[in-house]
């Protein structure tokens, strides 16, 4: 039995691995500069991090993963996939190579190998995106923030290392006459210079003079410019992602309104249309769910719709009383429809050809004008149109939405199909009808057919 990558334990573990990777990217370069300069060893933390990293390698062999939409959960395939991929990078990043030391001057560059753990940040956050743990825009912001922090820190460390290496007796630390034994102060000055340079502020209180410093400053200015370009591009793209759909929707709304006005449609009608489209936007974000559903196999489509409407259908007896299989079938076959205030769900004078199940909003049943008397209010969970539907008569009353109404519509062909294929359907409607009995008695005795 393999561990699932979306299990709570694995997610918690991945958070720990991310924190270790981030700590490695931020603290290791600082400790290395300190170690190279003062001949110190790394702290014991790195042994602990390596041990956790190696446990993570072992855990990866025991965790199923997703590849091209398929869950790989067979332990042999998981092991093969890992060994042919990230295993080698993970093992190199986590084996304690930093324990090997050159005989004459303490730490060697192999101590930088744990920085390879940073690839974990990309892999793990990518997984979180796949399992919908975090919104993709939020993840992009997190990744970009981490990228800026790491680049700034590495540049600060490099600048500090150049100052401490005494390539030139007139290096920036000497020129500023900073005490060499206060490492924290030196690091802060270095970080300050890096941030002012990367941010293109450049106060001019710390300036590059020696050759290594000049080279470093050039590289840093180019990095700063690239980071800026990257930042602007990212911000624009994230903003577009957040609001691009709405902007496109507004443009379309405006084009429709222009077109209708040009063709002499009343301003009042255009306003009502705009309000309706605004409501639709608030429900669907401009996304046409039918496009998505059409491509899905029936069973998956049923599950998706069922999950989407789970809360709503709890209050609708038709669904609350139906077994799960029939619920999904009903959701597949019934047509979702929204009605703005003032529009008729069922019009008088027409033959009863549909039953409307109200999911949200308020509907008023009224007799036909000129009387136009309000007869009854219908709310979430009720259904209308059943009398004219089963009697096959013309309606002599109308049902009008008084608020925005979301409903599911059962047409006669769908009803006939359901009745033939789902034997429980008739019994279900009979149970429902008992609940509506009192209302229907009132309507029938008043001579109303709806």
């Amino acid at each position, binding site marked *: 039995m393999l561990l699932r990558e979306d299990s709570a334990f694995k997610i918690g573990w991945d958070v720990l691995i991310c924190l270790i990777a981030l700590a490695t990217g931020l603290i290791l370069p600082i400790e290395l500069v300190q170690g190279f300069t003062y001949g110190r060893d790394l702290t014991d933390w790195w042994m602990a991090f390596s041990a956790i990293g190696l446990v993570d390698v072992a855990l990866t062999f025991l965790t199923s993963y997703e590849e091209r939409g398929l869950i790989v959960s067979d332990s042999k395939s998981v092991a093969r996939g890992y060994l042919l991929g990230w295993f080698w990078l993970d093992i190199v990043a986590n084996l304690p190579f930093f324990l090997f030391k050159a005989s004459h001057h303490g730490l060697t560059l192999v101590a930088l190998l744990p920085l390879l753990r940073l690839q974990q940040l990309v892999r793990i956050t990518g997984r979180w995106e796949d399992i919908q743990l975090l919104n993709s825009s939020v993840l992009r912001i997190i990744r970009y923030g981490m990228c800026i922090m790491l680049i700034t820190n590495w540049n600060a460390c490099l600048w500090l290392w150049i100052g401490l290496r005494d390539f030139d007796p007139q290096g920036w630390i000497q020129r500023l006459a900073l005490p060499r034994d206060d490492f924290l102060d030196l690091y802060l000055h270095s970080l300050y210079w890096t941030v002012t340079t990367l941010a293109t502020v450049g106060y001019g209180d710390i300036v590059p003079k020696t050759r290594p410093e000049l080279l470093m400053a050039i590289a840093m200015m180019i990095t700063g410019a690239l980071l800026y370009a990257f930042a602007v591009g990212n911000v624009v793209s994230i903003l577009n992602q957040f609001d691009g759909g709405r902007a496109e929707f507004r443009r379309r709304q405006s084009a429709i309104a222009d077109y209708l006005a040009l063709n002499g449609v009343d301003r009042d009608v255009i306003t009502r249309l705009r309000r309706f489209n605004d409501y639709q936007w608030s429900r669907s974000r401009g996304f046409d769910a039918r496009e998505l559903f059409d491509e899905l196999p029936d069973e998956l489509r049923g599950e998706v719709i069922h999950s989407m409407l789970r809360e709503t259908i709890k209050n609708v007896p038709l669904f609350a009383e139906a077994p799960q299989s029939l619920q999904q079938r009903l959701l597949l076959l019934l047509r979702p429809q929204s009605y703005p205030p003032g529009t008729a769900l069922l019009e008088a004078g027409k033959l009863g050809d549909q039953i409307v199940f109200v999911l949200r909003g308020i509907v008023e049943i009224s007799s036909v004008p000129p009387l136009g008397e309000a007869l009854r209010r219908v709310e979430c969970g009720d259904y209308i149109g*059943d*009398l004219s*539907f*089963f*009697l096959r*008569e013309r309606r002599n009353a109308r049902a009008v939405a008084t608020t925005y109404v979301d409903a599911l519509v059962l047409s006669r062909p769908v009803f006939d199909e359901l009745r033939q294929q789902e034997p429980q359907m*008739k019994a279900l*409607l*009979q149970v429902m*009808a*008992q*609940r*509506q*009995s*009192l209302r*229907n*008695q009132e309507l*029938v*005795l008043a*001579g109303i*057919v709806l």
Partner: protein
Amino acid sequence: MDLSLTVEPGLGGERPAEQGSELLIVAIKGELDTNTSGQLELALQEQLQRGARRIVLDMTAMDYVSSVGLRVCLAYLKRLKSEAGILMLAGLNEEVQEVFDMAGFSGLFEIFPSLEEVRARHQA
């Protein structure tokens, strides 16, 4: 629509001699719609005035019921109930039964598959 009225005396149960305890059978033939419901209403009205309190609407030969027909059935069900009487339905075909079921009215009436079953029940 044709209406045929049959009074079957002595099927009233405990006190057959009492007025109104006879089982009055009103057989309906054809369609019970806007045009014909008036006849049924008149017939029921007349029988009620004569003291009938146990009425069976025999729908064996009836093939359609409209909203107006339903209204007459409902109205007389309520009226008979308020006068300690009873209105029964018998021999509904599938379509008519579905109308009563789906309107939520089948629980209001005593419905029998056939007239024979009504007789059997009330002779017992």
